[in-house]
């Protein structure tokens, strides 16, 4: 396996990404695509805003009763002939999947796109234990051949150009006719379709993720466009669903309400091509379908997020709207984030799952423009949560030295108003004098990073407090209105 950037080195990952012209072209496509389509389909559904509140409430209700719903869900899976396996950690989840594969005598395992599988490191786990793992989602297949991690949670190969894919296929596909044209996306798609066909039929085990688990009937739901997930789970002898605990919803009606938001927020489709509700193994009289159905329920840090300020993040449905609209993601792409989950959702989820000590930079990968929060269908307060992690990172001694000194100095001054006024007065005058007639500064001590790309408009020679005092001397200050006293503090 190649070595890949880690979350701990976000700043240098980001610099490399900004200097990569191919990546920048790919990210340009992303910005023109999803956000525009999303805006169109959202405008076409006047109920969209109200549905966001509904979706938030559905998930909050489920999370607050998660133990009860999980038990009911499990009983219903068993009732329909399936099995549920509980995994506390990534390691336990991988072992469970591997045991099922071994019991099924699996040599070839087909796999649909699953973010939680990435999270638990399932790919590498299977690869190093003699399993031929075949990714069947086109984007996942491309990055599998290139031995790269996904750079986006919906379009994992968004960082790769068609020319690069053509080269990758030529290098990896034995017996490929050298004259076969692989220039256009259509040619590449056809080649992938041909290659993967035989694998679906040959696989003993098919692994998919889940977008929802439904307590009411013990079903799992996957939402896809390519049809690979359905071929994976229908044609293999054994279907394994790998899903994290928070995928649960109580009823089909609840799932449908959230589904109305998912595709719109994600790819800007009104509904994805395939929304598949799977329930247990093949029935006795059925002609096709898997003979066994397993669900591996993954905790891996979720239960610890419940009841804390991180619980809101468990509402996430992995739609990617936040990263599609994020200026930081749009500039540096997904790999810079160094772990499975990029963009604003990653900046919050990654520290929750792998610890702020391993990802202290990520909550800083934001301009706080708040766009992520505006588009998040589940109304997750992403910026508030990032701020929380910034505070935690600061409190535990992570963050830049200059930043820490500057913040330390500022908080000393802020607690001493007279000193604060005096220092800011001098600074404002000083900066104004340095800027001279140009009115802006191209360099400021300690802010080299900021002024490298732009000029700082200079203060106009007076502080806010000075002006406030001057203005209030002119106009008599309004007396604050007397509010009726509440019982508080009595």
């Amino acid at each position: 396996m190649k070595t890949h950037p880690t979350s701990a080195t976000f700043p240098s990952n980001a610099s490399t990404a900004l200097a990569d012209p191919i990546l920048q072209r790919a990210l340009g496509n992303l910005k023109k695509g999803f956000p525009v389509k999303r805006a169109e389909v959202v405008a076409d559904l006047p109920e969209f805003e109200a549905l966001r509140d509904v979706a938030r409430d559905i998930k909050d209700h489920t999370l607050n009763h998660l133990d009860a719903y999980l038990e009911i869900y499990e009983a219903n899976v068993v009732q329909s002939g399936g099995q549920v396996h509980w995994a506390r950690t990534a390691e336990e989840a991988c072992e469970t999947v591997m045991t099922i594969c071994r019991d099924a005598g699996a040599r070839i395992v087909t796999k649909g796109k699953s973010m939680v599988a990435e999270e638990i490191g399932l790919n590498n786990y299977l690869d190093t234990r003699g399993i031929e793992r075949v990714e069947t989602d086109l984007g996942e297949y491309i990055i599998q051949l290139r031995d790269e991690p996904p750079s986006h949670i919906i379009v994992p190969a968004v960082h790769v150009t068609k020319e690069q894919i053509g080269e990758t296929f030529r290098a990896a596909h034995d017996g490929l006719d050298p004259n076969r044209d692989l220039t256009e996306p259509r040619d590449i798609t056809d080649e992938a379709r041909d290659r993967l066909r035989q694998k679906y039929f040959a696989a003993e085990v098919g692994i998919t993720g889940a977008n929802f688990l439904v307590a009411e009937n013990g079903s799992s739901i996957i939402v896809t466009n390519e049809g690979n997930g359905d071929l994976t789970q229908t044609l293999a002898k054994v279907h394994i669903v790998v899903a994290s605990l928070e995928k649960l919803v109580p009823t089909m009606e609840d799932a449908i309400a959230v589904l109305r938001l998912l595709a719109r927020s994600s790819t800007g489709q009104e509904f994805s091509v395939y929304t598949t509700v799977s329930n247990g193994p093949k029935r006795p009289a059925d002609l096709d379908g898997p003979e066994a159905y397993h669900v591996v329920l993954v905790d891996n840090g979720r239960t610890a997020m419940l009841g804390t300020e991180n619980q809101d993040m468990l509402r996430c449905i992995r739609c990617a709207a936040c990263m599609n609209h994020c200026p930081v993601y749009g500039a540096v792409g997904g790999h810079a984030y160094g772990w499975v989950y990029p963009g604003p959702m990653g900046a919050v989820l990654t520290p929750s799952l792998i610890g702020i000590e391993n990802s202290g930079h990520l909550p800083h990968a934001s301009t706080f423009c708040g766009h992520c929060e505006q588009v998040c269908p589940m109304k997750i307060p992403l910026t508030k949560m990032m701020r929380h992690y910034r505070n935690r990172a600061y409190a535990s001694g992570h963050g830049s030295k200059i930043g820490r000194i500057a913040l330390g100095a500022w908080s000393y001054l802020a607690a001493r108003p007279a000193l604060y006024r005096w220092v800011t007065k001098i600074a404002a005058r000083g900066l104004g004098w340095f800027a001279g007639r140009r009115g802006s500064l191209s360099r400021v001590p300690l802010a080299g990073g900021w002024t490298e790309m732009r000029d700082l408009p200079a203060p106009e020679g007076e502080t806010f407090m000075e002006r406030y005092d001057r203005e209030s001397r002119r106009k008599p200050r309004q007396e604050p209105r007397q509010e009726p006293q509440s019982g508080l503090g009595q």
Partner: protein
Amino acid sequence: MSAAREQILSGIRKSLGRGPLDETGMAPIRQRLQAPSRHIIPARVNLDAEGLVALFISKAKGVSASVDEVADMAAAPQAVARYLIKENLPARLVQAPGLADMDWSVAPTIEVRSGLAEEPDEVGLTPAVAGVAETGTLLLASGPETPTTLNFVPATHIVVLRRDQIVGPYEDAWDHLRANAEAAGSQPRAANFITGPSRTGDIEQKIEIGVHGPLRLHIVIVER
């Protein structure tokens, strides 16, 4: 039961700051599951039967499905034959056993097999549980009469849908499926909501129709 199970459940309760729910705590949960209630239904489906059919057709076409309308079941085989010729496809298909009533004698050139789909079957023909006007979506359910492979393996999927199966929102379609399941005594193994032929945007965000699933989705709407 497994140690992991117990630890996860008790971990959840600890985080939520409570023990297992008692009968009073469980009551709202039981009620929610027993009588699932609908959330907001988009106003766009507030139409009469005629309007729903028109919405279904325009939405289905909008996601690259093709649609044909015929007067009755007897006319369906000819509509299928016409489509195969128009798309330059072989005169050979696999149909769902559930469509055994279709009388192919009117289209004698077509070779019809009944059963599941395998490689290299090129055309699959199936019925549906419902058509959802909201987004031009079909709902199909697996069963002995309707194998799922027909929906995904052949490059062309043709669906016969009765006009009176077209409903407004997904919830109506799911209620049909629930009613069928209750009558049959078990849920289908798979229920597929299908909205157009398969597609991908994985290569430079350019939409390509036809990836691993069907390249073509054709819907024949039967009046009665």
